[in-house]
């Protein structure tokens, strides 16, 4: 399913602290690959690998300008992932609320 593969890619991309750091950095504005390498202590190839994963998840967009590759935040997938997590959380909260009421109702409040 496309929906699943998109979210799988998003969650996988977000699973790495360096990639989350790159997203945080790009939240402050676009940067080139080499500008991203320095603060994270990574090689150019190391950054390219992480950026490639972020790019496949649509979290980052890159563009070649002259000899440098510029990176900026991509569109939308984070909102989709957040909405999915929130829906999942609400479903379990609702089940546990209902279960709690059921147990207390059928236990006479004792125990």
């Amino acid at each position, binding site marked *: *399913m496309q*929906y*699943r593969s998109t*979210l799988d890619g998003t*969650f*996988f991309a*977000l*699973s790495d602290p360096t990639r989350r750091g790159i997203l945080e950095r790009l939240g402050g504005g676009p940067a080139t690959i080499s500008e991203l390498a320095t603060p994270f202590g990574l090689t150019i190839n190391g950054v390219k690998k992480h950026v490639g994963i972020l790019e496949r998840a649509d979290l980052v967009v890159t563009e070649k300008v002259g000899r440098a590759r510029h990176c900026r935040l991509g569109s939308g997938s984070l909102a989709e992932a957040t909405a999915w*997590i929130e829906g*999942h*959380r609400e479903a*379990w*909260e*609702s*089940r*546990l609320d*209902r*279960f*709690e009421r*059921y*147990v*207390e109702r*059928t*236990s006479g*409040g*004792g*125990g």
Partner: protein
Amino acid sequence: MSLDLRFERLIAAAPERVFDAFTDPVGQREFYGQDAAGWIVDSRCDLRVGGVWSLSFGPSPDELYHHRHVFEVIDRPRRILIASIETRPDGSSFETTLEFTLSRPRRRLTWSTT
């Protein structure tokens, strides 16, 4: 990436009672129930390590969610560990681990998904 969600409830009942409610057919249907008219819950549970608790639930036969839980640990009344596959009406699915733990003396039920 694991989706690490944790929920806690303090329940006014003995841990054994909470555990038994979670593992009996009425409690399990209640867990997945909703007040909405026509809400469907079909629950079949083989309560043993390696056994399967399968559920189909949703607002109509055309819009059913499916959870397939396999019991990995059953330790009454303290803990249940479940390997789970959840499938949505659109066919998308994902795997998760569910853990149900009960602690004395505060009767705290902790439910976590990872």
